[in-house]
Structure formats: C-alpha cells, structure tokens
C-alpha cells in the first residue's frame, strides 16, 4: 500500500515537472561526469539535459534562451537537511523535525511535514542547492523518515523525488531520556534497537506466512502500541523496508563507540547503513572503508560541543583518503544559523584537504548517489534532469556569487548571491 502511494507520488512529480528548454554557456562546465569542459555548453530540452560539450561541438537550438556564466556546475545536492520541516522562525509551531512522544517512530513520514514554502528552502536554492534530502532530525532513537525533494514546487508532491529515502536513527547521548525513561544509556539504546529490529523480523515472517491474525506477539510491554486486529503496523512496515534493503538506515553517531555500535548492528541485521555526522569517524576510517559504509559527514563548520568535541575540519578529507564515500550536508541547527548552506560547508572542506574536485563531487554526484537519486540528478549528463548552478567564479570562493539556478530547465533563482 505504501509502495503504491510512493508510485503515485512519483508519477505526480513527473507530471508536474515543468520541463522546459534552456541552454547554458560557461567558461568552465564541471559536469562531474568527466573532465571539466572549457567554454562548454549545456542544452536542456523538456527539462532534461539533451547535450553537453564544448561550444564548438554542441549546437544551441534556435530561439532557446541562453544563460551565460563563468562556471556551471550540476545543481548542488544536500545529502542531509531539515529545511521545510525545521522552519525559519524557530517557534514551536514551525518546528516539525523532531517528535518527542516516543523514542522509536520510524513511521513518521517527512512527506507529511515538508513545507515547500518555508523561506529557508528558497534561501538554500539561491545558493545553487537544487536537491535536498530532508526530514526528521537526529535526537530520538528512531525519529522517522526522510524524503528527497527538489527545492521548487507548490506542493511536496511536486517537489518530490523519493519518499521515503531513508529511516533515521540516532546513537548518541542526544537521544537519551532523563528521569528514568528509556533509553537512558548507550547500552539501552542499542538494546532497544536490536529488540525492535528482531520484532520487525518476526512481523515480516508472520506476514510472509500470511499469518496476520491477532495474537500474542511478544509486544506485551508496548501497551500504548497495541495492535487492533493484527493488521498493518506502520512502525514495523517502515523498519521492514530497512531490513528488506529498500531504504537505508541513516545512523547519526559521533563518538567512536557509537559508530562502532552502528557497525555492529549493521553486521547483525544486514541493512544498508549510512553514517551521519561522524565527528570521530576519521578515527575509524579504515573500518568504515572496509565495511563500505558511506558517511554524510558533519557540516565542516559544525560547532563542536559535547559528543562532537573531537570533530575536525579535515574529517571529510581523511575519510575520503581512506576510501570512504563522503557526501556533504547542511545538517540540523537548533538556533542561528537556522540552516547551513551545503555550498559553504563543501567549500570549507575543499580548503581543508578534500580539494576542489572531491568537494564538488561530495555536494553533487556522490551525494546524489548516496541518497538514491543519482540516476536523476547530481551530474551534467545527457538524460538527467536539467538542474544547473551558475557562478561568476570558483563556486567555493567566499567572494564568488551564485548568479543563476536552473531546475528542470526552468530558471528558479536569478538573485545574485
């Protein structure tokens, strides 16, 4: 049923995409799919990239609007954000990124909370960000789901690329409860996750056997959650999609022991894991590389406190050096700035060992692949969406401006930033 909803949403998003024709000519085009093209041209037809190449080899169709810029890159991809849920005003009524009523609620869909009109969506778009994975924030053991959206659209359906794109879990003291409530310790956190995943397995087995009748399901301690008639359990369904490998489990962890616990859980339950934040991930770079676990590394300028005290500006570089796939994120901010901008975080990483090329990949194609939309966005290749960011210089330089942003062939921002 949920799969069906998902399919309908996808169809809608395709119908609504205002695919248009446009061309871009730039002194350098970073396709991210090959070498940079000097004096390059990108032609977008019906919202999709129809041609990319040097100006002398690619014909610009007659009558098409041509944008000129110094540099063109793929529209930027932010691998982990809370824009659209964590509103700009930061008052109770615009904060929908974290529900505290229970520690485990994987059924909470970002789809039902995303506000495409929050000013921060437009704000990040004006800096070239065209795709974000956004949704429930870290801070509960399992806080819910994420979606992937384009940073335009009148409705979430119009903006949507993927839902759910992941289920998000937190293994850190920020998910701990006080006052004798669980989870109160690291050990309890892992125990609760294991218990929940084991129950999900049993639920899946039962449903596979067609044995969905009411009965003792070992859930006696879960009184507020008693199942009417043994039907569909939204929570278990969401976790089942993780165990079936349909969506990854993004685990937010910073301390070495928490990252290790996450890897141990992955080993036991064989889900697709993405590490989020990973302030101390550089200390386990080899282990993460060996496990093939990618990292959506903390914003480079993230403010170190408590469990992130050992982060470093060079985290992304050190992980990438060890062979770990890294993507950049804006993350979640509870105060000012209310959101970070993935362009700025990638820039700081570029200047701290990651270098231009890897940093650009980390906020375009590598991020897109990691969040499961690499077939649609993240590079300038024929057939992909016409999402392009235009700059008047090195995109990562402080004093360069993002001059225009194109999504599906439509100019969506002309504010010089």
């Amino acid at each position, binding site marked *: 049923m949920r799969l069906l909803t998902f399919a309908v949403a996808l169809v809608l998003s395709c119908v609504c995409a205002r695919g248009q024709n446009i061309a871009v000519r730039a002194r350098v085009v970073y396709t991210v799919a090959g070498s940079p093209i000097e004096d390059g041209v990108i032609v977008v037809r019906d919202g999709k990239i129809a041609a990319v190449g040097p100006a002398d080899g690619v014909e610009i169709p007659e009558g098409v609007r041509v944008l000129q810029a110094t540099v063109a890159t793929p529209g930027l991809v932010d691998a982990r954000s809370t824009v659209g849920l964590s*509103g*700009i*005003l*930061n*008052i109770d009524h615009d904060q929908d990124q*974290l529900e*505290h009523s229970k520690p485990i609620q994987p059924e909470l869909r970002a789809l039902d909370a995303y506000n495409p009109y929050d*000013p*921060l969506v437009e*704000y*990040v778009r004006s800096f070239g960000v065209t795709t974000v994975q956004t949704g429930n924030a870290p*801070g509960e053991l399992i806080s819910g789901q994420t979606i992937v959206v384009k940073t335009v659209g009148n409705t979430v359906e119009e903006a949507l690329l993927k839902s759910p794109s992941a289920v998000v879990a937190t293994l850190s003291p920020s998910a701990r409860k*006080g006052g004798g409530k669980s989870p109160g310790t690291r050990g309890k956190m892992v125990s609760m996750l294991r218990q929940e995943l084991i129950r999900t397995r049993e639920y899946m087995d039962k449903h596979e056997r067609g044995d969905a009748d009411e009965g003792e399901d070992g859930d006696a301690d879960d009184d507020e959650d008693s199942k009417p008639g043994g039907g569909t359990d939204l929570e278990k369904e969401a976790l089942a999609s993780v165990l079936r490998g349909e969506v990854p489990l993004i685990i937010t962890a910073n301390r070495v022991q928490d990252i290790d616990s996450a890897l141990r859980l992955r080993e036991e339950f064989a889900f697709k894991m993405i590490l989020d934040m990973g*302030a101390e991930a550089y200390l386990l770079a080899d282990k993460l590389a060996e496990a093939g676990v990618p990292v959506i590394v903390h914003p480079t*300028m993230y*403010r*170190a*406190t*408590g469990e*992130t*005290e*050992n*982060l*470093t*500006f*060079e985290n992304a570089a050190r992980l990438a050096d060890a062979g770990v796939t890294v993507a950049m994120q804006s993350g979640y*901010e*509870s*105060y*000012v*700035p*209310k*959101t*970070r*901008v993935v362009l*700025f975080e990638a*820039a*700081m990483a*570029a*200047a*701290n060992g990651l270098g231009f090329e890897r940093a650009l990949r980390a906020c375009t194609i590598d991020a897109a692949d990691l969040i499961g939309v690499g077939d649609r966005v993240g590079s300038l290749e024929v057939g992909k969406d016409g999402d392009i960011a235009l700059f008047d210089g090195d995109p*990562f*330089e*402080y*004093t*360069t*401006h993002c001059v225009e942003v194109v999504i599906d062939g439509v100019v969506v921002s002309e504010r010089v*930033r």
Partner: protein
Amino acid sequence: MARIWIALGVLLAQAWTGVGAARAQERPLAFVGAHLIPIDGDEVEQGVLVIADGKIAAVGRAGEVELPPDAEVIDATGRVIMPGLVDTHSHVGGIGGADGSGPIQPGVRVMDSINVRDAGFRRVVAGGLTTLNIMPGSGHLSSGQTVYCKMRFWREPDGSSHARAIEDIAIRDTRTREEGGFGVGTVMGGLKMANGTNSQRNPPFPGTRGKSASLVREKFIAAQEYAEKIERADGDPEKMPARDLDMEALVEVMEGRRIVHHHTHRADDIMTVLRLADEFGFRVVLHHVSEGWRVADEIASFEGVPGPDGTAWGAPCSVILVDSPGGKLEARHLVFETPGILEKAGARVALHTDDWITDSRYFLRMPAISVRAGMSREAALRAVTLSGAEMLDLGDRVGSLTPGKDADFVVLDGDPLSVYTKVRETWVEGHRVFDRDDPDDRLHAVGGYGAAGESEPYFCCYQHLIGEGQ
C-alpha cells in the same frame, strides 16, 4: 577607597609592563618580501615589516625601508601580512557574567570569570585574532562589564605560558582619567547591554520591549542621581553615597569612559538603543545589527553622542553574519548585505565572531562574505582590524601596521579573503603565539575543542532559549 584601587591598579600595571618588556624579542625582526596590508594605507606588494621591542618599528616597500643593523631578517616572500584581527564581540574563556537574580547587573565583571587555559584561546590565535572584547551574554538587559584582552599566549623561556591569569591578557589603559580614560594601568572594558528577545523572560526580567526600555531608563536615572550626589559631596566623605558597583559602572558609562556594547537586531530595537543613548549620553557600539540595513541612514547620521575625537561618529556598528537568517525571530531578516549597506550610508562598521556563534578560526570569512554582498575590500578588512579597535578605544594602539603600534600581526599564505588561505602565524607584541607548522598548534587550528580537554564552552544566549534536551 577608589583611590587605593586605582593606585593598586597602577602598581600592577607597572609590574606587568616590566615583565612584558623583558620578554619582548631580543633583536629587531624584519619580515622581508611579504605582501603587506597595513590598513591605514595602500597595500604594499613587496614589503618590509620591522618590529622591535614588541612594537612596529617600520613598514614600507622593500628597498625603501632601512633595516636595523642587528635585525634578524625573515624571508616572507609569498606571504601576506596584515594586522592582528580585532574581535569586538567574543565569548571565549568559559565566561559567566550576570546571574538570574535580575535583568540589569552592571556591577558584574566578566574578567572575574575567565579561564585563560580554555582551549578557546588556542583557536582564537589560530584564526589570527590578537585583540578581543570578551563579553558576558545577551540574556540580560545588562549582563555586566566586558574586558578587552590581548592574546599574550606566548611561551616563556622555561616553557610555561606567559598567560597565567586574566591579568596577563587584560589590556590596561594608557590614558588618565582627565583624558577620559579609566586611568593609567586600569583594565579596560565596556558594558554589555541587550534588548530584543534574548533578555525577555519571567519577572524580574522584562516581558516586553516597552518594559525593557523602562527598566533601563529607571536604572540610568538612578545612576544620574548617584552621580549628582557625588558631585554635591565635593570630596566630603560624610556626604558621599554608599558605594554601589552597579551605579559606579553606569556613571563610567555616562562619563564616556566605558562604552556600551549593545546587542540589538531588529530595526525598532536599534532605534530604541539610539533613543536611550541620546537620552543618557552614553557612547554605544551597536552589536549584531541584523536589520541595520533598514535604518542605515539613521545609524550613520546619529548625533546623540560624539566619537572619542569629539567629531560625529554616527552610531558605530559591529555586525555579525551567520549563514542563514532566522533561528530566532529577531534574526529573521538578517542579510549578508548589511555591512555594505551600512558602509555606503557612511556608518562605521566592524565585524565580530560572537564565538561560539561563529568560530574564531574563520573570522576572515566574514569580511569576505561582506565583500561578496557589496562591501568594499578596504572597509571589510578594516572591519576586522582598525574599525574594531576604534570601537574599543584602542585605535591608537592596535588595528593597523603603523610604526609605534603594538607588533600584533598575522602571516597568511594567500589573500585574506580567499577560502583557500590559511593563517600560518599569529604574532602578539613581538611574540609568535601561533605557528601552523607546530603540530600542537595545528591540532587547534583544525580540531574540535576536545583537542585540549577543556570545560564545556559557554553558549551565549543559547541554553535558556533552546532549553534542555535538544
């Protein structure tokens, strides 16, 4: 009693300068071949900077500056040298100012709370900052007195840090009281004030903006009466009012010795600050100024209080830029364009880190972002050096590469406004206090605060707004 304190202050100051002078570099140093950004003049392509006895001795073109015969020559080809950065608003040092007992506590001094071993200072020098205004937070209408500090974190010959207590890093006045200063040898600082939302809480704190302004007026009127009593006493101890630390600080403010550093974001809040400054005649620096772009002309043409030189200064602004607007209502309309708009209106503009809000290590990012959004390069670089120094009454001592000023400077490996540029070295009063090639220093340049196992950083205006558990 006051005299005794001042006398003691002078003694301490003399003791301190004695130590400092003895520890300044033995021979003059000449940095040759660097690109110099003096701030008080044009940039110099192939420059020479000579320092001696902790002061800047000469600045100029290579070949045009005579090197002292005993100078140690340092090849600085390919480097960029600019004055040490001045941060008009910082919260490093594990600070704690006023407590929850009341909204206006000018008698509290932040200098009585600072841990000079806090690793925050290591990050400060890694960012090229050499002079700080360390402030208590913005959760009060007045959270107390700020302290101006110099990052004197060099090593003594025995390996110990020169800075062992706040006294070692506090900046002492060279002006007499007759000159309008605090008195020679007295620790310098301002008064932190705030309006808007951070200081609104349950009673006895104000619940509205109107109440905030009313409480401040009440306190200043009391201070006026206190000052009148002292004047009427005319030196007669019998007629003197009982000493009141809150009143003493506010009297210093109204006398123009102690500058008010005022947290204010929204345009209407900014105008309220100007109204109060006009009424009570206090010198003020507007801090944050997120909606300064709405009232740039009013700020630039403010005539309520003259600058230290007696000329019209408008209302000086120390602006912060964070990476997006919002996060709290009063920062909803924060824009990167503010510094440039204020500059064009003719206002004096500095920038600040508000560390921990932004990290001292990328302070230079802020003038760069200001340039991105329309500020001139000259004004932007001045905003993190000389303009800031002027707003702390230190413009004749630091903030530019000018002979006679303190030898506080930063050595960069590229243009100061480039993301790819790194601070290689930071020098304070002729001593190197940061060297990126030193592994320990480098750790602080890229790592988190866990790099030194310090205490939890203090979050200005953060915890009580966000609450626990988030």
